[in-house]
């Protein structure tokens, strides 16, 4: 029972990340009809917004390290913490949550620049061209990050107050074995919040209504005198913000490196395909479903019968779903079928 609860939490956690990335991916596909292979890179750039803010907050002066005698070694003393010991330390401690504020305008700008500067020129081109150009864009983003931040992961810490784990077992009366890190629980709640926010935005605002109408019939909305293209550009920016925030919040769980976007991209595409191309609900459903299945497949009881199943479960499920429901779980007729 304890193990089941833990693996469900684990799966929801992973699923949250998959769903957030897949949501943006399918949103862009549903509105602009573009298969955006640079979406993983956007997630990675978001994570590096947190790294950048942490680096800015900890800009240091070099002071001779007297404890090393064999050569001249220097230790770094962060200026902010040296000048304002209490406030400075608190600000540095909360650098990841603060990075959300920093990341929103950066990611929005990046999304708009990507769409206006490059991707719009490929709307009428075949999907293969779109894949090639967005994949190239992803590689460029990766190499820029690698150039400035190096190839190694850069650890980010969650604020001290949520650095430990929550004893869920004691709360539920199940003993002390069900503990789960606070930050992962926060990430789970954060993903629910963002997903709900996006759905509410599309469902309950006029802007969202127009976008949904545009997704159904772009030409008709255009004929009604609405500049649907401008709204779709904003949707691209919104998708970039969602992926970027998912990246920012993921940094205390997984130290970011330049390649993390590619690692998530492949999984997110599987999520989108399993959920149904262009279906927002499908992406979220498939994200959580695959996250949970991946977690369960890693359990020793299952691995002892099917060794290596944890590595292939996602792809296996994708094959089965596509065989049984070729349009994905919630896919609609006519998407990518013309």
């Amino acid at each position, binding site marked *: 029972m*304890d*193990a089941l609860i*833990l*693996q469900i939490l*684990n*799966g929801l*956690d*992973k699923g949250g990340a998959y769903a957030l990335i897949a949501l943006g991916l399918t949103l862009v596909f549903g509105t602009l009809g573009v298969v955006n292979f640079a979406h993983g890179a956007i997630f990675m750039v978001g994570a590096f917004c947190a790294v950048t803010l942490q680096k800015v907050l900890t800009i240091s002066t070099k002071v001779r*390290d007297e*404890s*090393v005698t*064999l*050569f*001249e*070694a*220097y*230790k*770094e003393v962060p200026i902010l913490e040296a000048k304002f010991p209490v406030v400075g330390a608190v600000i540095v401690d909360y650098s990841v949550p603060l990075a959300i504020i920093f990341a929103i305008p950066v990611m929005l700008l990046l999304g708009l620049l990507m769409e206006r500067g490059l991707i719009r020129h490929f709307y009428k081109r075949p999907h293969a061209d779109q894949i090639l150009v967005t994949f190239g864009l992803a590689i460029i983003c990766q190499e820029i990050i*690698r150039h400035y931040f*190096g*190839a*190694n*992961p850069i*650890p980010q*810490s969650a604020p001290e107050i949520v*650095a*430990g*784990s929550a004893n869920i077992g004691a709360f539920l009366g199940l003993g*002390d*074995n*069900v*503990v*789960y*890190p606070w*930050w*992962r629980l926060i990430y789970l709640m954060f993903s629910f919040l963002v997903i709900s926010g996006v759905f509410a935005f599309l469902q309950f605002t006029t802007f969202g209504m127009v976008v949904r109408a545009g997704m159904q019939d772009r030409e008709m909305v255009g004929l009604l005198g609405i500049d649907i293209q401008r709204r779709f550009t904003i949707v691209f920016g919104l998708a970039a913000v969602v992926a970027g925030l998912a990246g920012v919040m993921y940094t205390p*769980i*997984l*130290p970011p*490196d330049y*390649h*993390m976007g590619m*690692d998530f991209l492949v999984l997110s595409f599987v999520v989108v395909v399993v959920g149904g191309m262009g279906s927002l609900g499908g992406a979220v459903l498939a994200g959580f479903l695959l996250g949970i299945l*991946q*977690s369960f497949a*890693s*359990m*020793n009881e299952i*691995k002892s019968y099917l060794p290596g199943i*944890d*590595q292939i479960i996602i792809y296996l499920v994708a094959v089965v779903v596509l065989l049984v429901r070729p349009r994905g779980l919630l896919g609609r007729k006519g998407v990518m079928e013309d």
Partner: protein
Amino acid sequence: MSKKPTTGNWTRRDVLKASAASAAITGAPLFFSRHAYGADFLNNPGDGGTVTLGFNVPQSGAYADEGADELRAYKLAVKHLNGEGDGGMMNTLQPSALKGNGILGKKVEYVTGDTQTKSDAARASAKRMIEKDGVVMVTGGSSSGVAIAVQGLCQDAGIIFMAGLTHSNDTTGKDKKANGFRHFFNAYMSGAALGPVLEKEYGTDRRAYHLTADYTWGWTQEESIIASTEAIGWTTAETVKTPVGAGDFSQYITPVLNSGADVLILNHYGKDMINSLTQAVQFGLKDKQVNGKEFQIVVPLYSRLMAQGAGDAVKGIFGSTNWHWSLSDAGSQAFVKSFGQEYGFPPSQAAHTCYVQTLLYADACERAGTFEPCQVVTALEGHTFDGMGNGPTEYRAGDHQCFKDVLVVKGKDNPSSQFDLLEVVEVTPRAQVEYPVDHPMFAGGDLGSCNNGA
């Protein structure tokens, strides 16, 4: 009747015959003794003024940190071999044939490659170095999978391979090769050194849970640590293989909480170890009580670079290491001083082994008087030396593995500087980590004969 044209008493035909005969007579000894003269082997630098070494290290991937430090050490070794800088360990190596004028009077040059921590990329990079750049020796790591792949390539090509950071038993076990040499210690040695320390610290009644990187190094380390911990009375609760570069290990860590195990052994290295250890601590394993005992985490193969990446998570955690910069012997001090002055921070164990391997190769060439691989192999086999930071050391002829003392270390609770992260708790003597060439964990391979590549 016309007269034949003559040159003195010699006819033209006589001159031609004599020339051919003298060419055959003078050329014959060279033909039959070409190997003895060392003239014919792959990438022979000949009369040129330079010799090229190939440094094949991971500059990206899970072991990129180690790779960057290895490259720094190689560059420093080249500097010292060419007589620049303060000489570092060249001043402490005993015995030494090094002169500080390159190798055999030829200036040392180098080419570098990125293994990407992938066997195929590493082999492609080494192949390019051998075929295009004409290197006489390839060296590098990290990752045992990569080292074994490149060692095999060098054996087939006829080039010496001086392994960098590779810890799998297989490198000098079932996959050993006559052209390959390893200075770094191995998984068996880690187990043999750690066993008695773990017994002293945590007692004999423990249940261990292994998370293991799913490739040659992980498998052999898991086997070695299980053997040494079961020998002191511990039991093994579970062994779980994890993919290299998994990133998020949470789905492998949560089952540990309910397994009844009271020790988690992380057979991970580099980026994987940083992630799995950090996440294990986030899941509260360090503060957990199981079976009435405090839960413990052990990292059998440790490095300062990993400790730096994992931050506070390493405090109080035991492991083993090949070398540490805080050692006080003359060789270690000379190397730390030299490396620190060059780069502003102390070297890692990966840097140390790579630096030492370059110097040992150069020394063997000087003693052999040639770059010819088979003669270099003879010079290295059974060679004993000191002054390289690990005490008296021997390159065993039977498997080309170095035998020397091993360090057991612990994450320091109160570091005095950003580099002072590990403390050496025991120097395990060579005798305790030694094993016969045909030990079951190393059986199944054959050195074969050396290859000159000609």
